[in-house]
């Protein structure tokens, strides 16, 4: 694995091929792009695959970086790396936020058009009232469950340093991760909970949504919330499996990769004018 530019670059090569085009993956909570393994292994002959990681200087300063700042750095490094065009950016779950903000920066600050692929990332308002209006029953249920899970912390002020659970965010148990990972995860979690996405008027995205997630996971939001922030077309595709198994289960991952491969072949062509197509693939 070789860095695309110097040691401080965040971009590194996952696979090289003679065909044109780049597919760039963004880091997850653990700071790596291992989730992309089934995709890279299948598409490595058709497209150049790259990963983005936190550079040394970024980790040292991670406490002071916001998700949008971090994405700005990723966009800068991608622009400087002169990756084969067209450029496609992709992120799964939390990494979908990085993909979205980086695509936005590439367009806004570097004049680079990239196609954005979001793999089962949901984006919701931070405001409790806005969320309550949107899904009253589910939000109330969530609030009750949150109180039950966190009453030790909320009432007795007994903080479990191994548990990350901000209101409106997923619950994360750090005890299941090596100690050395925890600093990165804590900071990535903070970035996520403080993150307020910017609206992107010229943006467009293809969202691959896990078809077997239950309604509570998606809060009944068919487009996973992306139409609020992306004013161009948001194309939805259902893929088999739930949030975790869509990439972990070899059969599900194979289907997802096949769909992604087909979509990448449409590169540069219009994929549809529908603002939101919930009919799946």
């Amino acid at each position, binding site marked *: 694995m070789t860095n695309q530019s110097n040691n401080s670059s965040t971009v590194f090569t996952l696979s090289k091929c003679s065909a044109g085009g780049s597919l760039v993956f963004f880091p997850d909570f653990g*700071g790596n792009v291992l989730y992309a393994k089934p995709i890279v292994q299948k598409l490595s002959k058709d497209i150049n695959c790259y990963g983005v990681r936190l550079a040394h200087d970024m980790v040292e300063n991670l406490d002071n970086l916001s998700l949008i700042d971090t994405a700005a750095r990723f966009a800068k490094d991608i622009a400087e790396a002169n990756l084969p065009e067209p450029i496609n950016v992709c992120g799964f779950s939390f990494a979908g936020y990085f993909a979205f903000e980086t695509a936005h920066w590439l367009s806004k600050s570097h004049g680079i058009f990239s196609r954005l692929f979001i793999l089962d990332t949901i984006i919701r308002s931070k405001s409790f009232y806005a969320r309550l209006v949107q899904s009253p029953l589910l939000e109330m249920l969530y609030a009750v469950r949150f109180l039950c899970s966190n009453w030790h912390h909320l009432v007795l002020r007994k903080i479990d340093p191994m548990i990350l659970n901000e209101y409106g965010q997923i619950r994360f*148990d750090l005890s*299941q991760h090596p100690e050395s990972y925890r600093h990165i995860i804590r900071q990535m979690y903070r970035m996520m909970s403080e993150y307020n996405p910017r609206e992107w008027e010229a943006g467009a995205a293809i969202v691959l949504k896990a078809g077997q997630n239950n309604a509570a996971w998606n809060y009944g939001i068919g487009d996973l919330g992306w139409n609020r922030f992306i004013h161009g077309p948001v194309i939805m595709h259902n893929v088999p499996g739930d949030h975790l198994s869509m990439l972990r289960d070899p059969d599900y991952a194979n289907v997802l990769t096949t769909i992604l491969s087909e979509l990448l072949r449409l590169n540069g062509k219009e994929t549809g004018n529908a603002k939101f197509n919930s009919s799946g693939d």
Partner: protein
Amino acid sequence: MEKRREMPNSIQAATDAPFFNFCSRIDRILNAGGDQVFAELSEGIVTYADLLREMNNLDTAFQNLGLSIGDRAAIFSKNDRAIIVLFLSLLRSGLTPVIGDGYAKGSEFDDCLKVCQPTVIFADADIFSNSTAVKNFPSSRRIEINTDLKIPASRDSYTVSELINTPANPERQTIVNPPETAMLVFTSGTTSLPKAVELTHTNLVAQLDIFSDAYGFDSDIKLLNLLRLHHVDGIIRGPLTALWFGGSVHRSIPFSVQNVSKILASIPEQKITHFITVPAVLSIVERVGRANADAFQGPNFKFILSSADVLTEQLWTRSEKTFNVPVVNAYGLSEVVCDALFAGPDDATRQIGTLGRPVGCHVQILDAKGLSVAQGEVGELTISGPAVMKGYFNDIVQTDQVLKNGKFLTGDYARQTENGLFQFVGRKKTAIVMAGVTIYPESVTSVLNNMPDIDEAVVFGVADVTRNQRLVAALVPKPGKKITPADAAAFCRKNLSAERTPIEFRILDALPRTASGKVQMNELSSSELEKKADLPGKDVLSIAAFCFGVSKEHLSSDSTPFNTEGWDSLAHMTLIEEIELQFEIMLSASQIAQIASLGDAMKFVEEATG
């Protein structure tokens, strides 16, 4: 001594109490049996006439010993004949038999006594001599099981031979207050002490009726049952069933690998109708007995019955193919006497990979809140009906944990298929949560059993510092074959998702098993076996090979997650932990973020260790 026998002699009171109904049928069968063979044992043949005479003699002997209705009598012996005759006699005389392992060591024997608190103990001499607890027990209530007719030096002590030869009173005593409890059965507990399942006469009759409905048992049955008699699989499905239906039980050749061909050859000779076994024994019989594949082809033989443990699809299919005979899979636990669900013998329910359908009981699959789950969803299997135990003897706390609203919570996860049959998913106590994902090890075991060159596999969880638990596979290669952890990991990668792939593979000569053939999970997860596992050498490539389950030769500094088998997100965490553990270093967050190849890991280890 809760209830007293009433004198004088008279016929037994006519009543509808389950005990009397139970005894009434047994007496009828005993009296009608005559010279018909009841049991063919390694100690010789027992006819119904022999059995009736000995049971009558023992009934009188129990009275002479001053035993009262409901008194508990412990039996610990290696002598099948003594166990069977004592057990049936105690049941019929209104006493409560509790059979322990005749091979129990001193402390195990003492623990069993603590739990069942017997009034009288029948045991082999060596068991008495190795016990410390028994020294405080009155000598008149310690009855030594021997086969000779030795007269003891003191009249304070007796032998079973003496008791069996006690002349019976011509008329049996009247029992006014019949006992409710029929027997106690030891089962493994979550603490060091075993639990004793308390079964009533109603439970036993319900189970025997279920056998009639499910298996079609009648007086023609000749049961080949070589299972140990201190388990319900041996004693209930063997001698008691034979007596209840007026058939016979056959256990003249003790089970061993060397005896398999002799045992199979005896099946047509003895006109056996049913071979009652457990998966561990069936596996050996299938493998070693292929030369006698026609053993079950006689006109009398009906089916093989497997129970007491998970019958894998592979073993089920192989056995039916090898012996060209139906294999019935029954599901149950001691808490419901023996069997509650039956896959077979009819073709509609004998669906390989299922537990079949319930007979004589009601089955529900419940979620954690006690609500029924939808068809196809996984939940805990619960059983209600007349065969469900009274409880655990003298243990209200453990009883309340498993008996709720008349339902017995089995602790096993199952789902119902579209055609109404039930499927086993895993055991509640073996389900593990690894890196946040719930995994049923049995489902992984089932896949590994399909691996070529694997004779047996079992997968289980062990404690893990960071993941909470990690999945470990113990594998036994087929005789003459060799497998490596890398082979097993490669097979898992092809057939299992990353999260269900065991972290560690232990290659063993044999799986440790209990007397009844169940795998001893405590033994498997012991530190001794852990020490035998192939641990990595102190270099990054060796550590990575161990973590990814691949051969070290396939790795280099250029290895990345994207060109290396087995390097997924879970294995990545294992790699970091193992590197830190082996080199006694702590990688920084910055280094963690930069590790994208083994070359990166090597560089950081070098920096940290100087």
